[in-house]
């Protein structure tokens, strides 16, 4: 099975879906001739032409709005927000329009569109190229929110997102793009949106995470194994709809839960997962639920030591899990 990087899995999924379905097209800033600033759409313009790989002006609201209008007309747009940070001008289109189209039209119209956005820090991107924005959307019914952490999941979930009949926000952690590699089957496969996956079995502490921090959890688990601490790791993969059953099962495995994400602690998705556990698995718990997340500062600093301070890493995660294990 070929080993691909996380970003190559993005490109592969796009290419396969575009080959299969002429209604699929991508649009965004620098996605065509440049192949994307991260090269996620590399080579697509040569294969599919400039109409299906549309270089747009710097116009995020129109990118989202055009996607909505085109999807209503039966197309399958895959829009790229160059950085998740720049999704803000499109928020009105996403929240007021895409999320509500099916509901307010009583199912007459719907928006089968995907908005891809690279998010997250650790790449020295500074304040406006590092943010995690998922918590802005997780409270908006009508949207699906996918946050894969491995190349295998990227391919399967992006293909599902493109085939989905509802609007999907597909958040790609940009630190994962070239750092994370893995086996990706050549055949056409999809993974169901809304299904979490146990990435490591364990018995002492359960870690629930997604994106880059999921990898820190896996590394920490490996490290802690040597100390005799067995860590169970659940990758949410999809935030909305949340796989509640998988969360509750993972909690029952160990009775000690740590939720980890890079998005800010306050309002971050960990709060939602934590509330779910408190409501539905309280008696499974042997320790208070612990959240490990980005601090509540307005942005990821550009200064390297401060960025390092903001970011989670294997050491911080290992330390936190060890503490919880010892509770």
């Amino acid at each position, binding site marked *: 099975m070929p080993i691909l990087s996380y970003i190559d899995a993005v490109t592969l999924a796009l290419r396969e879906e575009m080959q299969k379905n002429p209604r699929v097209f991508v649009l965004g800033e620098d996605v065509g001739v440049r192949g994307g600033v991260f090269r996620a759409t590399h080579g697509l313009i040569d294969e599919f032409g400039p109409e299906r790989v549309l270089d747009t002006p710097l*116009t995020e609201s*129109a990118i989202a*709005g055009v996607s909505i209008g085109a999807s*209503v007309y039966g197309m399958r747009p895959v829009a790229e927000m160059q950085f998740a940070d720049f999704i803000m001008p499109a928020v009105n289109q996403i929240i007021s329009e895409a999320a509500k189209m*099916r509901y307010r*039209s009583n199912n*007459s119209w719907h928006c089968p569109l995907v908005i891809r956005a690279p998010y997250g820090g650790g790449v020295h991107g500074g304040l406006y190229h590092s943010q995690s924005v998922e918590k802005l959307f997780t409270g908006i019914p009508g949207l699906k929110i996918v946050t894969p952490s491995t190349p295998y999941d990227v391919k399967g979930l992006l293909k599902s997102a493109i085939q989905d009949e509802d609007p999907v926000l597909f958040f790609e952690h940009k630190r994962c793009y070239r750092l994370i590699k893995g086996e990706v089957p050549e055949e056409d496969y999809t993974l169901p949106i809304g299904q979490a996956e146990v990435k490591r079995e364990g018995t002492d502490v359960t870690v629930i995470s997604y994106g880059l921090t999921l990898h820190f959890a896996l590394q920490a688990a490996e490290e802690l194994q040597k100390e005799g601490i067995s860590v169970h790791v659940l990758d949410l993969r999809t935030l909305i709809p949340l796989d509640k059953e998988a969360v509750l099962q993972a909690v029952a495995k160990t009775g000690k839960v740590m939720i980890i994400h890079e998005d800010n602690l306050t309002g971050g998705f960990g709060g939602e997962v934590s509330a779910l556990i408190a409501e539905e698995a309280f008696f499974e718990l042997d320790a208070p639920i612990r959240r490990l997340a980005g601090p509540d500062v307005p942005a990821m600093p550009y200064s390297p030591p401060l960025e390092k301070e903001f970011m989670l890493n294997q050491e911080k995660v290992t330390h936190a899990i060890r503490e919880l294990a010892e509770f």
Partner: protein
Amino acid sequence: MLKSMDKMDFKVVLPEGRLTDEGRCVWKELSREKKLDFYRWMVQVRQFDRRSILLQRQGRIGTYAPMAGQEAAQVGSALALSKEDWIFPSYREVGVNMVAGIPLKQILLHWMGRVEGNRFPEGSRVLPPYVPIATQLPQAMGAAWAAKMKKEPSVAVAYFGDGATSEGDFHEALNFAGVFRLPVIFFCQNNQYAISTPFRRQSAVPTVAERAAAYHIPGIRVDGNDVVAVHIAMEQAVSRGKQGEGATLIEAVTYRHGAHTTADDATRYREAEEVEEWVRNRDPIHRLEVLLKAEGLLTDADIRDWEEASRQVVEHAVKEAESVPAPAADHLFAHVYEKMPLDLIKQKRDV
């Protein structure tokens, strides 16, 4: 005719019901049926609008956005569209929707707060009313882009008011449409007030139409109370779009006789003399009525008959809409996604 469109303030029928010089050529080319269609639709729309305000006062529908005064802009433009064209309306476009074939019953259900009202007849390409202001402009472009990709000869029209021209989406949409020469029509009914904000406070540029130049698309300003002028402008924009010549911005200058909505009091921000001038002297229906009578196409008896017939149509729709049973409470949970997520099933069960 084309030459005259390059000028601002294109007019065919003057407020007193006389044809302009250039209007005479245009008028001559219109069929008798078309001339009467303009009239009948405008009367029908006004009857509906009047009845809707009363229904709101009686508590039988919710807050309503009156459009009396804007009949010519809506009817004239919508009659230039065909089945394959897309309409992205704002909330004040009941006239457009009626001409586009949306049953009055559905329109009333919408104002009763029923999402079922936004389920339109099969094959209809009218989107439900847009409320957030200007969000429909980029979406109309998306439909236009899809038409271009599918090589289908349809145009997409975004309807909006003068207030929408200050929103970012107006700029993003016109810029995008200009760059890609999309078959899209931006139809602005400049009724001169965004709730209470007069247009001079909305824009330092005195007209909406001249903004089009900044996006390298044609900007056309017509007397929005002149149904024929509006119609001709729209026909030309549609034809440009379908021939691959790109987008058009049309500014139809008009006036809403009533308030922004039934929850608004327009006397707080508009002078009585100004309202009086527009209602008495510049009414869109009156001028066509005068012209049609002078041309021998309409008699007082025809007018009475048609008004009565229009009232009947509205009454029938009111009965139909009011006889629709109340929704089951759990309709609250319908159509959030294609398939209801487990969590929502649980919430639905728990209510």
